[in-house]
């Protein structure tokens, strides 16, 4: 029996796009395109097994070795700092981590800045680097309403097109870091499944270069 390459893909549009890249690299698995609710798909011929997981969980599957490789946003990698290799910037799923606030926002330096975010660590690291004292408010969703309801002064969140912000009368004040999807790899798997991983990496890298 061949050893299977286990791939964790983020559920959703990004995952589907990335799967197409994997398919072009010779790791196809036709059953994945059938419209059903299955989460695991495998193609023994190509020795590959894909599974759909929640985007923020991909890094955990890879770090713990349940998946050999996976695709995760840089935001997740910065927030959870998993102990994995970051082999390639896939230059897709591009957005940015930014500080946004109400249009008339002015920073009151007399008191700590109230920051609402899903990305607590990214926010903390950013404000430490600029030397600003903050009061962090962890939220799990609908971050945009925090400044509107005066729960926070600013938010730290992912901005793609900025439409959501605009519709809620918010605007970007600072870009913290650009975000894109990354190919990540378990450190042990990289050694024991080096051949298929290098093959995949090579093909994906040339696909990314062509897209440019």
């Amino acid at each position, binding site marked *: 029996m061949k050893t299977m390459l286990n791939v964790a893909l983020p559920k959703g549009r990004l995952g589907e796009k990335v799967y197409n890249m994997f398919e072009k690299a010779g790791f196809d698995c036709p059953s994945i395109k059938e419209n059903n609710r299955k989460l695991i798909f495998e193609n023994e011929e190509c020795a590959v097994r894909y599974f759909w997981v929640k985007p923020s969980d991909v890094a955990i599957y890879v*770090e*713990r070795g349940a998946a050999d490789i996976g695709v995760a946003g840089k935001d997740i990698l910065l927030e959870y700092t998993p102990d994995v*290799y970051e*082999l390639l910037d896939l230059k897709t799923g591009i957005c940015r981590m930014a500080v946004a606030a109400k249009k008339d926002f002015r920073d009151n330096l007399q008191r700590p800045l109230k920051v609402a975010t899903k990305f607590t660590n990214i926010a903390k690291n950013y404000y430490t680097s600029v030397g600003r004292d903050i009061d962090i408010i962890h939220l799990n969703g609908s971050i945009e309403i925090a400044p509107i309801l005066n729960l926070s002064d600013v938010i730290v969140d992912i901005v793609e097109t900025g439409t959501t912000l605009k519709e809620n009368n918010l605007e970007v004040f600072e870009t913290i870091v650009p975000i894109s999807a990354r190919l990540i*790899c378990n*450190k*042990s*798997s990289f*050694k024991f499944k080096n051949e298929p991983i290098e093959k995949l990496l090579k093909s994906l890298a040339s696909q990314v270069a062509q897209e440019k």
Partner: protein
Amino acid sequence: MQINNTLLQNGEKAVFALRALYNSYGYAQYKMSKFEEYDFYAKNKDFLISENIITFTDIGGKLLALKPDVTLSIVKNANLSENEVKKVYYNENVYRVKRGDNSFKEIMQTGLECIGSIDNFLIAEVLELALKSLAAISEGFILEVSDQSIVLRVLDLLEVSDNTKTTLIKLISEKNADEINGILTAQNKCSKACEVLNALVKSYGEPKQVLENLKNLSDDAVLNDLIDNLADVLSSLPSDKIRLDFSEINDVNYYNGIVFKGFINGIPTSVLSGGRYDPLIKKMGAEFSAIGFAVYLDLLSELSKEPEKFDIDAVVLYDENCDYTALNEQLNALRQTGISVSALKIIPKRLKYKKLYKLSGKEVELIEDNA
């Protein structure tokens, strides 16, 4: 007493094998107390894998710590005279917080240290012991080796600020070639050193081939000497299980030169970690070299993922009115065939047994066979 090998856990088996191995290379066992003064660890906090230490106050009011590490104590008590070499191994429990976990764990650790006047022969010997330690645990293993002095030399050649250096070191450890190139391009760096750095990040493979590639790229005499030296150390070792991987970087404030990690197929993280730590010794005020490694035995439990099919080989059912002498004789007779036997009045709900017997009169009668 004969020890039944099948009953031992992977970690326990490894302890026996590793002790015998280290003994045969003339390493002496180092035993230490469970506690040390907290101050001692606080001074060398950065060397420890986790900063959290379990502390308590001794009767006399002194603050003590449950040892989070063995290497520091060995180095402290080394007391070496010139040109002397001390070789010790240990098998101790350490107490620390594991990465990504918020509670203390007791971790069984075996390892060795070779300290004093270290030369390439002794470094190769330690690497050989690392290879043999891994082989004693499982056939599918790889020892990943790097030389930090090579990485640091390349970074020096780039002539970047210390901040950038720190960032680059982190990115190298992630094999993050894209972001490294991003930084170098942004700083208008496009020297030969950039090419070497790129090759360094992407190189992974058998030592000879990787080192040849690097040497073909490099035009720096110091770097070439470092490459030759690494080739010299590795020349006597079997290359099929060694992979050069420069992404392997330990804290540069404590480690210099060769660093290495051991991986076992089926375990997602490294089970062996070591390297040369001259800077640590310097920080502790002494003037000698040292190299060593530790094996994390707690991780070996990951190797036996298949649970046993049966909890016990045989169950003998009895009731209170039976003849206890006869029962005992029958149980011992069964045990003498080398199987595990339990006498029970009722069978627990989820107990999986191979055979079920019942005592009737003075004999046992087989009533169920699942084997």
